[in-house]
């Protein structure tokens, strides 16, 4: 007789509501009439994300003190719930961006099934409290994303992107799994807090396991030198998928990374802080320098996301409460900017029918001023300019580094921010400073599609990006209450 643990359904409700949406969507894929299937499946998927968003807020509200639940396999605390709020919001905007994406009618419901399932997997992943749930969550959302990358079989490069992501992502997952196995072998424990309590500090088996787990997380967060899949996958995948990957995956990977490092490996802090700082510097260097050479805007933003992984890893590396708060705060404007920027690219892509490069963005800002100005806001936000949350994000990360006494990390961060000005402003330059007459490419024909939902999604992202600048303290309060759930 197996004794069943008590299940706190409310704690896993965000994950369940997205999973429920995925199940309903699978039925829609089969039974719903084709004519209105697109609208129906987008609505159900969006409703699933909204429900998850609301449930995550409720869980956060009702969980002042975090605890491990369901046989200590998952955490119910504000750190996870806050990350779930962000993931659910990303999913909702991803639905808005994806709605008018030209995809085959017969695949459309499956697309939303996978989107909802990936969201559910991430929501589960951020709650992980032991090595089993950690790996389960990771594979859950990764497999959904692999398929999503390859789902648009009419799109050149989509299949290639999916395959590359699958192969390299599988290596990442396997590394994480191997690392977990070594950690388990060294300590005989699965739960994060018990691994810490086992007290096997400086056990070489444990240290190797830790290193491999770090590499696995870095794969998912697309941090250098584990970023090789990022440019190809981001460029090849359908743009709404890229938008979701760039935002939500980063939330899940970084939030869990910090939690695992702090909860399971506090004795090895002197090792992993330096390792993470090294990964952060590598990401900043690789991301920013490689982005300089890009002409394809999706690829450019892929490298930019590598560099932002670097900024957020600075926050992880500091291993102090300020760093945890900074990470959680940074993710909010970062997700809004990523989703919004890829949303704008999706709009231009549908208008032209070709991949968006710096050249064929010319004149875009004057033709469609609302989207153009939004893109401008996102680029300045990535750059860390005032009037966007990116400004406070960078300052907060730097202040965390200062708290640790690593002022040189501030200098490195600032130097690479200067480098990044070049390519972010190149996007603005293309949109506003060049005339569309310079564009050697005819639009795909007719006036551009209106895409009401997409522009609302982008507008939402602008509001979050700019709003997180003006209302920084309330958001930081949320981030602090989330960070209080972590053991410092």
């Amino acid at each position: 007789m197996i004794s069943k643990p008590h299940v706190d359904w409310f704690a896993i409700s965000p994950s369940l509501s997205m999973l429920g949406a995925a199940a309903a969507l699978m039925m829609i894929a089969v039974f719903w009439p084709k004519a209105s299937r697109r609208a129906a499946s987008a609505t159900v998927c969006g409703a699933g994300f909204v429900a998850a968003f609301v449930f995550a807020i409720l869980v956060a509200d009702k969980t002042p003190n975090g605890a491990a639940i369901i046989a200590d396999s998952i955490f119910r605390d504000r750190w996870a719930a806050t990350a779930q709020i962000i993931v659910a919001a990303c999913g909702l905007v991803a639905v808005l961006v994806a709605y008018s994406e030209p995809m085959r009618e017969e695949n459309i419901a499956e697309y939303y099934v996978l989107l909802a399932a990936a969201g559910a997997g991430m929501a589960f992943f951020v709650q992980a409290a032991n090595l089993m749930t950690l790996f389960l969550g990771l594979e859950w959302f990764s497999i959904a994303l692999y398929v999503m990358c390859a789902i648009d079989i009419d799109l050149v490069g989509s299949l290639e992107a999916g395959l590359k992501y699958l192969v390299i992502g599988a290596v990442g997952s396997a590394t994480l799994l191997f690392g977990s196995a070594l950690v388990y072998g060294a300590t005989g424990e699965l739960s994060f807090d018990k691994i810490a309590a086992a007290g096997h500090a400086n056990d070489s088996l444990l240290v190797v396991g830790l290193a491999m787990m770090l590499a696995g997380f870095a794969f998912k967060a697309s941090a250098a030198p584990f970023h090789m899949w990022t440019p190809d996958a981001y460029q090849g995948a359908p743009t709404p998928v890229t938008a979701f990957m760039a935002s939500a995956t980063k939330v899940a990977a970084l939030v869990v990374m910090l939690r695992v490092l702090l909860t399971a490996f506090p004795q090895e802090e002197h090792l992993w802080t330096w390792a993470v700082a090294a990964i952060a510097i590598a990401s900043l260097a690789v991301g920013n320098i490689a982005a300089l050479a890009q002409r394809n805007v999706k690829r450019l933003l892929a490298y930019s996301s590598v560099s932002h992984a670097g900024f957020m890893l600075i926050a992880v590396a500091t291993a102090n409460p300020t760093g945890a708060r900074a990470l959680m705060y940074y993710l909010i404007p970062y997700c809004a900017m990523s989703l919004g920027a890829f949303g704008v690219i999706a709009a231009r892509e549908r208008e032209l029918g070709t991949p968006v490069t710096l050249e064929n963005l010319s004149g875009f800002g004057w033709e469609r001023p609302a989207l153009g100005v939004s893109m401008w806001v996102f680029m300045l936000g990535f750059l860390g300019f005032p009037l966007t949350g990116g400004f406070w994000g960078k300052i907060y990360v730097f202040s965390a580094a200062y708290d640790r006494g690593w002022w040189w990390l501030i200098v490195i961060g600032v130097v690479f921010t200067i480098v990044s000005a070049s390519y972010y402003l190149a996007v603005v330059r293309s949109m506003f400073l060049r005339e569309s007459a310079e564009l050697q490419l005819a639009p795909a024909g007719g006036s551009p599609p209106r895409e009401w939902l997409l522009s609302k999604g982008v507008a939402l992202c602008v509001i979050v990006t700019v709003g997180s600048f003006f209302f920084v303290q309330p958001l930081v309060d949320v981030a602090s209450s989330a960070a209080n759930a972590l053991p410092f």
Partner: protein
Amino acid sequence: MNDWLTTILIFLPMVGALLVWLLPLPRHMVGSLATLIALVEVGLWIAAIERFDFSSGSLQLSQQTSWFSEINSSYHVGLFAFSLWLVGLTVVCGAAACIYAWWVGRERPRAYFGLLLFLTGSVVGVFAAQDLLLFYAFFEAMLIPLYVLIGVWGGAGRLRATITFVVYTVAGSLLMLAAIIVFGLQQNTFDLTQMGTSTNDWLFLGFAIAFAVKAPLWPFHGWLPDAYRESPAEVSGLLSGVVSKVAAYGFIRIAITKFPEPVKDFRALILTLAAIGLVYGSLLAFRSPDIRGVVAYSSLAQMGLITFGIFAVNDLGLDGAVLQIVNHGLLSMTMFLLAGMVERRTATGELSLLGGMARGRPALATILMTVGVMALAVPLSSNFAGEFLILAGIFQQGWGWAVVGAVAIVLAAMYMLRLISAVLHRDVGPAVSDAALDLRTGELAVVVPLVAVLLVLSAWPDAISGHSFEQGAGSTTYTTRMPGP
């Protein structure tokens, strides 16, 4: 009202910009709305002067609201007497730019006027911010409209000009950001009125380089010739008349007050750079082939002179510096507008193609002559008063500096007289057709008020030099008169 006045001064133009961008106005209404907002802003500034107590050197019209309390950064704005004058310079020049742009009829008016107003608001914000991060936010916000104003409405070489400008300024200001973060976290507050002083040379350099790029000081002036030549005339005027003064303000408000020790260590270096800029800028202005070049390089020289006054770090020098900031701001705004007006008539700014424009164009001749003569600091002009104070102040630091300054004043006479004669006198140039009209009413409406303000200042320079810092009871050390911690 008093609490809110500074905030309104900052945000009225920004809200105005939003209105201009978003209201579905017909094209011809956009310029008039923007001008109206700019003029209301001038009116508000006059209201601020009425409410200001010049006998006290303390922060006035201030307002503070918590913002990012986690790291002790707040929305704190307020004005000192000298910042009030800088705000005045900004709003007057902003209004002049709006009126001139309206008269000229810029393409894409909604974007253009919105950006002009946004620029005005953010510069006022820089002068009013009493929190370092707020200061930085406005400092960077200035760059956004400038980038587009130069890049979209500029001349043929605008792309190159924008890139150079942005690379210089972003590099400088991000170094300052690093310095701000470390300084603020060290002090555990970002509030300028509560921060103590620091002896850290690196932090000082972070600030000083950002300001040196913005001013610009030699050798950080690489962006200057392109940006000043390629921008629309009124944007060049704002760049050299107002935006460059942000650097002077930063030197006064942050570098000198917060870093007294490093200032002593680096004073000789900074004065040397300023002296080189002063002489080198004057020589380049003398050799420059076009009107804008003359005015642009004379700006480099004048910023060197203002830096002299600031880093003399005594009463005379600082009073003179503030007076000269206002003088030069108004003068270079006027000069750039006049350059724009001449270019509109002749389609060129090349001095070799110009000449003889005085004949039959009395208004242009009178105004260009008046402004030019003031710019070369003829006695009785406000420029003379400012430069005299600066030289008197720097003389106390060492007579050598004063000699350099005096030489530069001679050079100023050379390049200004060359400019005047090349445009107005000599034979009629090939680019000047008889059909080129004298200044029109709309143009006079911009330039005449600016010249009038300069004439008033010439009659009463003490209005600024005597009302910029607290009139201490015989105190000669600058620290007692500076807005301290």
